């Protein structure tokens, strides 16, 4: 949530650079709807149920059984959110992709409490604009 809010704060600058922003989580669309409303997000939160897309990026891991037990004891049931019984999650990751589909920025961290500042992402996008014809700003 904190990361999504921080990204929302720089969304106008992303758009100024002609870039779009999306978030992807394993949760159902209803969860994305709740997040968008609560954080007043103006970008799409996509629902990757079954984690197929996260898998294609190599981001999916299975929680060790001892952590699964701990979360169960907290009453956090991932299967309730995800619609699947396996305790799997994506590594948190932020990607910058050029319009040809090539990845120019990738920040993947095993520690979900460490996230890159949106300014780093802006710098990567500016690098893209400098290297190619500047795309039209999005509205």
């Amino acid at each position, binding site marked *: 949530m*904190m990361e999504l809010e*921080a990204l929302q704060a720089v969304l106008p600058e992303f758009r100024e650079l002609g870039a779009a922003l999306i978030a992807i*989580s394993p949760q159902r669309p209803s969860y*994305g709807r709740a997040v968008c409303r609560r954080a007043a997000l103006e970008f799409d939160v996509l629902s990757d149920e079954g984690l197929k897309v996260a898998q294609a990026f190599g981001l999916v891991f299975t929680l060790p059984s001892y952590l699964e037990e701990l979360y169960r004891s907290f009453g956090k049931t991932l299967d309730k959110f995800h619609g699947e019984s396996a305790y799997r999650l*994506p590594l948190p990751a932020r990607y910058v992709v050029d*319009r040809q589909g090539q990845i120019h920025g990738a920040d993947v961290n*095993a520690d979900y*409490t460490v996230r890159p500042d949106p300014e780093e992402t802006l710098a990567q996008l500016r690098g893209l604009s400098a290297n190619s014809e500047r795309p039209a700003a999005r509205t």
Partner: protein
Amino acid sequence: MTLQERLDAFKASFESGAPPFNVPRSAIEIMHRATEELRQSGQAERALGVGARVPAFALPNQDGQIVSSADLLAGGPLVISFFRGHW
């Protein structure tokens, strides 16, 4: 405050054992162990990185409308944020 400063502040509060979370020390240690094992697995380094091509995808958004990577990229560069849920 930067994003990381906000995350650090939340983490300190969460791990303090104090209200509103009241998380016992034993639970914090279990979470640290899991993060450390995940770090040592090297998976983050094996995930798609700079220079790779982004896999094509089409997923429903918060309103149930299908959004495709092809449509997004047709308009320009794209920033993708993978997140696990509450964090």
